[in-house]
């Protein structure tokens, strides 16, 4: 658990980068810091591992005041991932990943086991990459190694500053999905900085929106989309926020709410499974001439059909409360 208690940062020259921010990130959840460039997200994040000294207020990590800890030890217990992966070009991938365990004096076997485990976790073949160097990897691979490295000493807390910001959209979407799967397995407490509302909705259990260093709203994505607290938040999430909110729900959610229509047609061009997000389903319906989607279960057996009208109704009744 991470608690921010009235945290303020004033840089030299009286620049107030963070203004009395208080929020709590529960154990094992992902909180996304969202807001336009320069609103203080990075500053707030870097105060957690004390790369930026706190001007006023307190940050506690799992009940311990960060100020009371030795900063080197504090940092070794907190994973840190940055946008420009920051891999060390002079070290092999294995040396990069195991640098903190190495500094902590783990024995070789343990280091190697950890490397193998982490590389599997981020979906890379350990033996294939062990002795390669960072420059031989693609951007997406480098970022995966960056994540593996941050998790090397199994820190309970991770700080991620726009970790996927430099990747092209297709790879970014892919790695976001993978990262959520990893998080399901490792259950870290994660602070994730982003300036992209779509990414925030996808990744965050909760989203904190900032403006000029002040916290505007801190809520679950559904709440944020449904009930923006003020004009700034409303503008930031955008006028298409109802459509954005569709990515929070799956076909299964829709079926829970609405009794499925039995299958009428004999052949369908479009098939979706229960885990498909409603946003994707919607997109498919818009892009094709078909009127219906066939929903199938895990064994590819048809369950029911869904139309645009179904999605629309669901949308209106579940998200348009604001």
């Amino acid at each position, binding site marked *: 658990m991470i608690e921010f208690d009235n945290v303020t940062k004033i840089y030299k020259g009286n620049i107030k980068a963070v203004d009395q921010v208080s929020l709590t990130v529960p154990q094992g959840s992902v909180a996304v810091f969202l807001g336009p460039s320069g609103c203080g997200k990075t500053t707030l994040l870097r105060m957690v591992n004390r*790369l930026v000294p706190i001007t006023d207020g307190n940050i506690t990590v799992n009940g311990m005041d960060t100020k009371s800890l030795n900063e080197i030890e504090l*940092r*070794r217990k907190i994973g*840190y991932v*940055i946008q420009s992966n920051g891999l060390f070009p*002079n*070290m092999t991938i294995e040396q990069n990943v195991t640098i903190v365990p190495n*500094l902590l004096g783990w024995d070789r076997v343990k280091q190697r086991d950890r490397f193998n485990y982490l590389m599997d976790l981020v979906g890379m073949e350990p033996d294939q990459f062990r002795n390669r*160097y*960072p420059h031989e990897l693609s951007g997406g691979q480098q970022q995966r190694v960056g994540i593996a490295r941050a998790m090397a000493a199994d820190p309970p807390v991770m700080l991620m500053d726009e970790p996927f910001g430099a990747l092209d959209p297709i790879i970014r979407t892919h790695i976001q999905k993978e990262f959520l799967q990893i998080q399901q397995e490792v259950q870290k407490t994660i602070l994730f900085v982003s300036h992209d509302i779509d990414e925030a909705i996808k990744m965050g259990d909760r989203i904190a929106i900032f403006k000029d260093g002040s916290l505007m709203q801190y809520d679950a994505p559904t709440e944020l989309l449904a009930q923006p607290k003020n004009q700034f938040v409303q503008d930031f999430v955008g006028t298409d926020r109802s459509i954005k909110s569709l990515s929070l729900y799956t076909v299964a959610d829709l079926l829970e709410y609405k009794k499925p229509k039995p299958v009428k047609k004999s052949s369908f061009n479009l098939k979706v499974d229960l885990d498909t997000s409603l946003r994707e389903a919607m997109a498919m319906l818009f892009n094709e001439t078909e009127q219906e989607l066939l929903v199938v279960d895990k064994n590819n057996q048809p369950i029911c059909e869904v139309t645009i009208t179904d999605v629309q109704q669901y949308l209106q009744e579940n998200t348009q409360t604001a």
Partner: protein
Amino acid sequence: MEKTKVFTLVFKTLFFLLIALFFSWGIWNGYFSMIFTESERFLLLLQQHLLLVVTSSLMAVAVAIPLGIFVTRPRFAKSEWFVLNTANLGQTIPVIAILAIVMTYLGIGFNTAVFALFVFSLLPILRNTVAGLNSVDPAMKDAAKGMGLTPMQTLWRIEMPNAMFTIMAGVRTAIVMNIGTAALASLVGGGGLGDLIFAGINLRDNAYLFSGAVPVTLLALTVDGLLRLSERIFIPKGLQEAAKSA
């Protein structure tokens, strides 16, 4: 396309022919004979020359690299401007002037020559150390710090290896220039192969000139080559490959 390649080949061949011509002309006239007839003196001067270079270079490395590290630490950032500008200014002062000034204070002899060569070698190493350390990607240093590396660990594991390419280039430049400059040590009574060259100039003796100038040149070229090779050992493999593919 073919034409440019042929042209290149012709050009290279001409260059090597010229060198070959030069050497055969020297040998034909017996200009290298001194190396063999007075081999003891020659070897002594060669040994002196090497001693001048090695002593002053080691001293320069031992002072310039730590100084470069020191001024690039954030805490001493203010000293960097001063040190770099002094180094730049120092680089502009001709080596012969440094030698002359050192001589007027330290008198003549081996020590004077070593000290002047040391001062002269300091600057390229210092400059490259600072440039190398400053060119290390700040994001990388930030990542290291964020992972809990101490400033010392960041320096030795991250900054130095990544700056090694530039630092080594500075050391190589300094040593190679040092070899040539050591030939001027003769002027301040420091010995070395310069003795033969200056004797040759004063006596208009081609044998002295050849026996001094050719070995100094070959020494400089050989050491340059050897140091380039040794960079492959000292520079981390990942960086060499990155440099190649970039």
